[in-house]
């Protein structure tokens, strides 16, 4: 299954481990995640949802889109279905590398480390944990990028503006 674009759709509708909330399960409607999330250790012991699956909500409600932005996951990343194909989780590795080189901060390196951890989890098919690690990579990368941008702007203000006005 590709994230999107090759037309096969994803795994069949069902309850799958919630990638954004380990310990929860979320209803996958066959095409996208929905807003229905509930703890795994529900009283039914994780069996089929009582009363059947929730009514098929359309994604017009702003279909829940877990996973970050970045390169790959602008759309939905489905669960690992019975077919065993892996969801496309963006580990934020490339963004971390770019931030490390451009913004001269150790935060980018921390991002790379979390990205690598996410990749390990993907290899081990722990997709929910991988999503968590990727989210941490994203956080550090964005913070590093933000601080880097601010320091570039600060340097511009400190050195360039006075230069301009001194003329």
């Amino acid at each position, binding site marked *: 299954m590709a994230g999107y674009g*090759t037309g096969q759709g994803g795994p069949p509708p069902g309850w799958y481990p919630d990638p954004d909330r380990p310990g929860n399960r979320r209803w996958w409607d066959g095409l996208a995640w929905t807003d229905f999330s509930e703890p795994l250790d529900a009283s039914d012991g994780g069996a089929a949802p009582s009363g059947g699956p929730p009514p098929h909500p359309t994604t017009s409600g702003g279909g829940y889109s877990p996973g970050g932005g970045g*390169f790959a996951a602008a759309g939905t990343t489905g669960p690992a279905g019975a077919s065993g194909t892996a969801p496309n989780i963006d*580990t934020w590795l490339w963004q971390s590398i770019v931030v490390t080189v451009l913004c001269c901060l150790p935060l980018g390196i921390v991002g790379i480390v979390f990205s*690598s951890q996410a990749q390990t989890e993907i*290899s081990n098919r722990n997709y929910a944990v991988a999503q968590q690690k990727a989210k941490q990579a994203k956080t550090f990368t964005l913070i590093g990028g933000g601080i880097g941008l601010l320091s570039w702007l600060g*340097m511009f203000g400190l050195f360039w503006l006075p230069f301009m006005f001194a003329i």
Partner: protein
Amino acid sequence: MTTSTLPPVVGTAPRWLAPVAVGIGALAATATLGSVDPEVRGHLIPGCPFRTFTGLDCPGCGGTRAVYALTQGDVARAFEHNVLVMLVLPLLVVAWAAWLAFRLGWRTRPLVLSARAGYTIATAFMVFWVVRNLPWVPFTWLGSGAG
């Protein structure tokens, strides 16, 4: 081919827009850099904040000069300024191409590096960061230096 996997808000932009935009931005930045020598004072290329405040090289120091050297066709000089950036650049280009191919539907996923590769890169960055600042001869070649 299903398109209903994208939330309605995003659905109007073509999927290849993001990588194309990034590519155009990178090309524009490089082209601009090619016409402005960062080593000449008065040209408005910002320096590195880390180096300005600590006097030490960060992993990216010399990267701008390295890319400038590339635009002038001087590959050897580019390596002198920042070896790491020169090694990472081709990798980023390949990753970008894979991302574009993914968004165009030619691939099922963007470029994926193994966890081991990621850790290697992180380690290489850290080692490079420290080592290029050491004041002893073989390491000083890694520094961005005055030239």
